[in-house]
C-alpha cells in the first residue's frame, strides 16, 4: 500500500530546528529535506508573498500602459512592497517576487552585462536591482527575482562574451556547438554542463543575484516540462547547477522551478529545488488576471498526482493566488474562496498576483484568514481527494492531532449540496465541525455533513472525530475469487497491498469482486486503492444495478497506489462489485475496503 512519504514534525520542534540552523550560521543552501529528517532552512513551509506576473500578463485596463508586460517597474514593485508590508506581512506574507522582464525594455529587448548576465532595464528599474532588494528588505520582507533556463540567445554575443571569474571561458564554451536551443520558449541556447566553463556561468549569475541581496529565484521554462520533453529540453542539469551555485554564494536563496514540471523527474526537483510549478500558468492573459476555466479549475485535476511529493523543503506550486479583488481577478466570490481553499489544503505556496493596493474587503478576508493560513503553514500534510469523481468533491487530510482537514468543493456550474461522509475519512459516529472560513463552530454532525455550495464553491472544515474507527473488510483485486474479463490481467505492483494489482482494464476489460458481504442493505462508501498514471474513469456497479462512472485522479505514475471512496448500493448478504472500463481506459485496481456498516 502506498502511503504518503510525508511525516510531520511538531510545529515547535520545527521552529527550533530553523533557529538552530540560522544560529549555526549555515552557509550552504540546505538541500530538500528527506522525509522525517531535520527541517530545511528554506521552504520549511510553503512560502507566502506576491508576484508581479499576474498583473504583467493581464489586459486589465490600465495595468500595462506601455505595452505588454510593462506593469513591471521599480515603482510598482515598491508600491506593492509597501502594501504588503502594511496589510499582509503580519499574516506571514514575506516574498516580493519580480517576475520576467526586469532586464528587458518595453519592446522586450533584453540587456546584459559584460559577462552575459541579465542586467536591469534602466527604464523599468532606474535604481537597479540591488536598490530594489534593499528597499524590500527595509520593510522586513524578502526579495525574489526571475531568470529563464539556459543561456539567453541575445547573451551569446557570437560566443565571445567572457564568463565572469572563469579564466578564458566565453559563451562559446558553455553551450553546444550546434547551438541547440532549450527551455519552454526555445529562447535560450542549451547549456552543456559537460564543459567546465558552464557551471561558472551559473555561478556568476547566482553570485550576482546574491550580491544584490535576493532571497528567491524563479527559474522558468524548465524542462522536462514547460511544454517540452526530450534531451534538448532536459534542464535537470541546469537546476542542479543552480543548486550548487546558490550554495556556493553562501546566501540562502529559495529556488522555485516553473512551469508544468514533468512529474517523472520529481525526485530531481525535490533534490535540487524548493518548489515546482505543477501546472501551466494560472493567468488567463485576458481582461482579468485569471478566469475560472482558464485556468484555475485545472488544478483540481492536476494536483492529486503530486500530493505525496510535497513536504518541508519542497512544495507543489499551484501558481499565483489571485483572489484579492473580484473585479480584477475575474472570479466570483465563491470561486475566489475555492481557489484559496485548494491552495491552502494542497499546501501550495501562497503568493498573490493581485494589486495589493486595491484589495477589496472580501479579498483581504480571504488572504488574511488566520485559520486557513494555519492549514497551509501548519505542520500538517496536504489534502487529497477522498471522493473525487463528481463535480462535487471532498478533499481531506488526517492531521497529527487526530483531526481532519476537510474541504468540500462544488466544481459544477450550478449550486449543489456536497456531503462528506465520515466513513470516507475512516471513522463513524459523531464529529465536531469547525468552519474555518467563517470562524464558526457548526456543532456536532453524525456520520456526515452536507452543505449547500454555490457554483464553483467550497467549504473548509476542521473535523474532530468523536466516534469510533471504521471497520472494513479488505478485498484484494488479485484474489482468485474475483472474475476478470476482457483483457484484464494481474500485474506486479510493489506499492500495492499483496504486491499485485489488476490492470489492462481497457475497452471492455472488467474486474468483478464476487463476494462482498455486508450485514445490512444500504449505500456504502467503499475505498478503492488504485494505480493510474493519469486521471481515468471507470464504471462501478454492484449486483445487477446500473453503473456509475467515476473519474479517479492520477496517482502520479503507474507504480503508486492511492485511494478514493465511491458510494455503492449493497444488499444484505453477498454482493458483487464490478469495475468496468467500458469503452475507455480505466485505472488499475489494487484493492477495495468495504465498511462493515453503511
Amino acid at each position, binding site marked *: 500500500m502506498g502511503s504518503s512519504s510525508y511525516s510531520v514534525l511538531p510545529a515547535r520542534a520545527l521552529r527550533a530546528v530553523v533557529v538552530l540552523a540560522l544560529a549555526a550560521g549555515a552557509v550552504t543552501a540546505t538541500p530538500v529535506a528527506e522525509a522525517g529528517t531535520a527541517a530545511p532552512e528554506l521552504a520549511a513551509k510553503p512560502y507566502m508573498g506576491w508576484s508581479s506576473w499576474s498583473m504583467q500578463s493581464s489586459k486589465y485596463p490600465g495595468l500595462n500602459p506601455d505595452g505588454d508586460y510593462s506593469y513591471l517597474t521599480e515603482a510598482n514593485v515598491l508600491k506593492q512592497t509597501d502594501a504588503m508590508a502594511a496589510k499582509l506581512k503580519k499574516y506571514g506574507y514575506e516574498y516580493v517576487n519580480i517576475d520576467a522582464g526586469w532586464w528587458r525594455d518595453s519592446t522586450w529587448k533584453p540587456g546584459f552585462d559584460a559577462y552575459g548576465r541579465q542586467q536591469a532595464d534602466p527604464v523599468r528599474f532606474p535604481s537597479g536591482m540591488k536598490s530594489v532588494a534593499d528597499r524590500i528588505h527595509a520593510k522586513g520582507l524578502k526579495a525574489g527575482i526571475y531568470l529563464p533556463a539556459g543561456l539567453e540567445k541575445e547573451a551569446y554575443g557570437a560566443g565571445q562574451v567572457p564568463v565572469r571569474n572563469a579564466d578564458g571561458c566565453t559563451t562559446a564554451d558553455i553551450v553546444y556547438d550546434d547551438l541547440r536551443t532549450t527551455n519552454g520558449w526555445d529562447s535560450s541556447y542549451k547549456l552543456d554542463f559537460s564543459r567546465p566553463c558552464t557551471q561558472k556561468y551559473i555561478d556568476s549569475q547566482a553570485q550576482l543575484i546574491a550580491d544584490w541581496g535576493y532571497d528567491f529565484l524563479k527559474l522558468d521554462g524548465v524542462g522536462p516540462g514547460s511544454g517540452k520533453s526530450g534531451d534538448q529540453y532536459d534542464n535537470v542539469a541546469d537546476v542542479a547547477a543552480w543548486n550548487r551555485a546558490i550554495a556556493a554564494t553562501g546566501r540562502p536563496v529559495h529556488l522555485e522551478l516553473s512551469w508544468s514540471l514533468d512529474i517523472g523527474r520529481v525526485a530531481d526537483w525535490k533534490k535540487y529545488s524548493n518548489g515546482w510549478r505543477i501546472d501551466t500558468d494560472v493567468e488567463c492573459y485576458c481582461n482579468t488576471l485569471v478566469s475560472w476555466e482558464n485556468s484555475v479549475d485545472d488544478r483540481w485535476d492536476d494536483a492529486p498526482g503530486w500530493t505525496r511529493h510535497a513536504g518541508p523543503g519542497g512544495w507543489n506550486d499551484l501558481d499565483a493566488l489571485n483572489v484579492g479583488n473580484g473585479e480584477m481577478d475575474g472570479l466570483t466570490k465563491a470561486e475566489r474562496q475555492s481557489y484559496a481553499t485548494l491552495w491552502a489544503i494542497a499546501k501550495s505556496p501562497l503568493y498573490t498576483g493581485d494589486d495589493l493596493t486595491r484589495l477589496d474587503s472580501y479579498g483581504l478576508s480571504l488572504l488574511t484568514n488566520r485559520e486557513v493560513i494555519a492549514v497551509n503553514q501548519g505542520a500538517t500534510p496536504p489534502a487529497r481527494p477522498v471522493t473525487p469523481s463528481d463535480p462535487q468533491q471532498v478533499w481531506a487530510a488526517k492531521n497529527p492531532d487526530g483531526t481532519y482537514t476537510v474541504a468540500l468543493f462544488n466544481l459544477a456550474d450550478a449550486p449543489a*449540496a456536497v456531503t462528506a461522509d465520515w466513513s470516507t475519512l475512516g471513522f463513524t459516529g459523531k464529529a465536531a465541525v469547525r468552519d474555518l472560513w467563517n470562524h*464558526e463552530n457548526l456543532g456536532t454532525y453524525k456520520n456526515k455533513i452536507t452543505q*449547500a455550495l454555490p457554483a464553483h*464553491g467550497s467549504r473548509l472544515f476542521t473535523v474532530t472525530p468523536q466516534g469510533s474507527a471504521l471497520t472494513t473488510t479488505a478485498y484484494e483485486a488479485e484474489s482468485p475469487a474475483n472474475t476478470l474479463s476482457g483483457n484484464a490481467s494481474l500485474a506486479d505492483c510493489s506499492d500495492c497491498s499483496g504486491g499485485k494489482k489488476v490492470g489492462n482494464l481497457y475497452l471492455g476489460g472488467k474486474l468483478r469482486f464476487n463476494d462482498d458481504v455486508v450485514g445490512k442493505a444500504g449505500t456504502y462508501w467503499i475505498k478503492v486503492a488504485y494505480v493510474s498514471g493519469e486521471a481515468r474513469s471507470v464504471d462501478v456497479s454492484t449486483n445487477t444495478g446500473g453503473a456509475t462512472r467515476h473519474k479517479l485522479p492520477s496517482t502520479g505514475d503507474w507504480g503508486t497506489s492511492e485511494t478514493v471512496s465511491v458510494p455503492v448500493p449493497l444488499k444484505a448478504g453477498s454482493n458483487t462489485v464490478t469495475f468496468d472500463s467500458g469503452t475507455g481506459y480505466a485505472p488499475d485496481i489494487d484493492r477495495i475496503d468495504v465498511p462493515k456498516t453503511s
Partner: protein
Amino acid sequence: MDTDRPSDQLPRRRLIALAAMTGALAGLPTFTATAAPQRPADSLLPGGDARHELWWQAPADDRSMIEQGLPVGNGRLGALASNDPGREVLLITDATMWTGGLNDSLDADGQFPYDRENFGSFTLLARLTVDLPDHDLSAVSGYRRALALDQGVVTTSYVRSGVTYRRRIFASRPDDVIVLHFTQSGGGHHTGTLTLEGTHGEGTATSFGAAFPNGLRYGAAVTAYGSGGRVAVEGPRVSFSGCRELTVVVSGGTNYAPDAETGYRDPSLDPERLARTKVRAAAAHSADSLLRTHVADHRALFGQLDVSLGTSSAEQRSLNTWERLKARARDGAPDPELEAAYLQFGRYLMISGSRGSLPLNLQGLWLDGNDPDWMGDYHTDINIQMNYWMADRAGLSACFDALTDYCLAQLPSWTDLTRRHFNDPRNRYRNSTGENAGWTVAISTNPHGGNGWWWHPAGNAWLCTTLWEHYEFTRSSSHLERIYPLLKGACEFWEARLLTTTLPGTSGEVLVADSDWSPEHGPLDAKGITYAQELVWALFGIYCTASAELKKDTGYADTIASLRRKLYLPQVSEKTGWLEEWMSPDNLGETTHRHLSPLVGLFPGDRIRPDGSTPADLVDGATALLTARGMESFGWANAWRSLCWARLKNAENAYQLVVNNLRPSTGGGNGTAPNLFDIYEVSPGRGIFQIDANFGTPAAMLEMLLYSRPGHIELLPALPEAWAESGSLTGAGARGGFVVDLDWRDGRPTRARLRSVGGRTTTVAYGDKIRTVSLQPGGSVTLKDFAR
C-alpha cells in the same frame, strides 16, 4: 343536492373555498381588479404532508434557474425562485406577457413568419432580487429548501451565526400577488436591499409600466414591510435594515384581454397602477393572513386527487429530492413515493399555471430568459394537447378551462386567417378543391389571434378532440355549448378540404385529407396521412354526438356522418407490419421519430383498442409501429409512448418510459432537472425546459391505473410490478362522467368507488371481470369483489 360537480362530495368547509375559487374563475380572465378575497376563518395553518414535500439541500443561482429555480404561480402570475440565502431572485412571468401580434402577412411560401417580432414570444415580466449581503451561501450552514406541493409554498431555511432564518414564498390567487416572507428565530435580523427591475430595459423602480410595439401594456409593482428595523424606498430600490421579519409583496400583469373584438387588449387597464393597487391592498394584511388565504385556496384544488403507489424505503426517504432521483436511476429500484410525488408535482404545476388566464404553453408559466425556444408558444401538433391530458384525469378539471377559453378567444381570428389566407396559391397545403371554410391553425399559435410557422390543417381537429374529452370527463353541458362552434367550424373546414379518391384495385370511393405533413417528419405533401384521417374521423364522430346532445344542426350532422363513413382509415403495411403513416407501405420517415402521429387513434383516441373490438391486425400494426419507435426518446415523446403502451396494457413498457423520464438530467441531458422540470437536450449539452412531459408523464401514470372511455372503465389496466404491492388512487376522473377511487393490493383492486359527476351507466372491468354500474348524477357506488 346539486349534482353537477365532483366537488359536491367534499366536506363543507372545503366546498366553500372551492366555490369561491370557481366563482373567481369565471370572472378573472386577465389581470384585473377583484373584490377582497374571502379569508379563511381558521387561525391555524393546516400542516403539510411529508409525502407532498420535495426538498433540496442547495439553492439555484442566476445560471441555473430553469433547472433549479422553484416554480410558484397563481394561474396567471408566476415566478421561478432561486432561494439563495444571500440573493433571492425571482424571475417573474405573466401568462399574457407576449410580444408579436396577428402575424397575418404570409411568407413567400404561403406559411407564417415564425419570429419574435411578428409572431411574437412569451417573455419575462420582471426580475425581483432580495439581497442579504451577510447571508452569503458560503457563510450559512444547514441549508434546506422545500416545495410543499399540497400547500403551494416554497420554504427556505438555514443557519447564519447561530440564528435560524426561514423564508416562505407563495403566489396567491385570492390576493393576486406573490409574497415573500422572511422570518428568523434566535435574535437575528434582515438587512439588505430589494430590487424590482423590468427585463426589457425598463430599469429599476418600485413599480414600472411600459408597452411593447404590439401595444400590449404591462407593469409590475413591489412593496415591503417589516417588523423592527427600518424599511425605506431609497432611489429605485427598497432598503431594509434590522428587520426581525420582512414581507415583500409583488404583483404585475398586462392589459391583455381574451377578446378578438378589442384586438386582445383592454384599453382602459393601466397595469402598473393596478399592480400598485394590488400590492398595497395585500400589504394591508399580515403575511400569515396572506399565507392562510393562499393555502386554503391551493388546497381546495390540490386535495381533489390523492395517489399512493406503494411505500419507499427509509433510505430513500432520507434523501433529498435530487439525490433521490439520482439514486432511483443508479440503483434501478422503484421509489414509489418519489414517483407519486412526481405525479403530484405535475398537478402542482397545473394548479400554479392554468387558472383563468392563458393556458400552459411550451414552458408552462416559467422562464429563465426573455427568448424561450420556440417562443414558448402553443404547439398544436402534440404539446398543448399533452399539457391538458392530465387535468381531468387528475382531479383538475377546473384547470382545463384555460385551454377552452383560449381557443374560443382565438376562434374569430383563426377563422378570419383561414378564410383570408389558407387557400393562398403559395400555400402548399391549400385546398385543391378550391373551397375554403371554417377554421384551422398553424403548428404554432400565439394569444393575439396569430399563427406561426407552417399551416397545420389537422390541428383544428386535435384541438377539438382535446376539448371534447373534457366534456366526456365532466359531462358539463355548458362546456359542450361553448366548444360547439369550434367543433362545427372544424367540420366545415374538413368538409371543404376532403378529396374523393379511389383506392388502387378497388372501385370504392374514399375521402382523404389533402396534402399535409405528418408531424414533423417524412414527406411534406402527402395525401391521406394517418394523422389527419384519424383526427378527422374522431372530429366527425364527436361533432355528431355533440349535435345530437345539443339538438343542434341535425341536418348538418347527417352530412358529416356520411362524410365520416367514407373516410379512408389507415391500413397496416405489408412491408413493415406497421400501421401506415402516409397511405404507403413504405417507411418514408424516421423510424424512431419522436412523434407518434399515426398512433393518435391509440392514444389519445380510442379507435384502436386491444380488447377484441378492433381488428387484431390493426392492434398488431399499431403495436409494431410503437415498438419500432423505441423506448429511448425524451420527455413528451416518452410520455406519449408510455400512454400508448398503457393503452396496450403493457405495464412494464409504460412504466419503463416513466422511469426514463425520471432519469436525472445532468449537463443538459434528457430527463428530470433538480427542480423536476423536464429537460430536452436539443443539441449536445444544451438542455431546454419543455413542460409537456411534466403533464404527459403523470397522465401516463394515471392511464396505467385507470382506463376510461364513455361507458367503459378499466381498473389497473397496466399496473407495473413496481406499484403492485399496494396503492390507492382517490379522485381520478373517468370519461363518461365519473370520479373513481381505487385501492389495490398484490396487483388487484380491493375496492373501487365510483361517483357520478354526470355519468349514468358504465361498465367497470378488471381483467375479464366486468360489472355494469348505473348511477344518478351525484350518486356513488363501491365495488369490492374484483380481486376474487
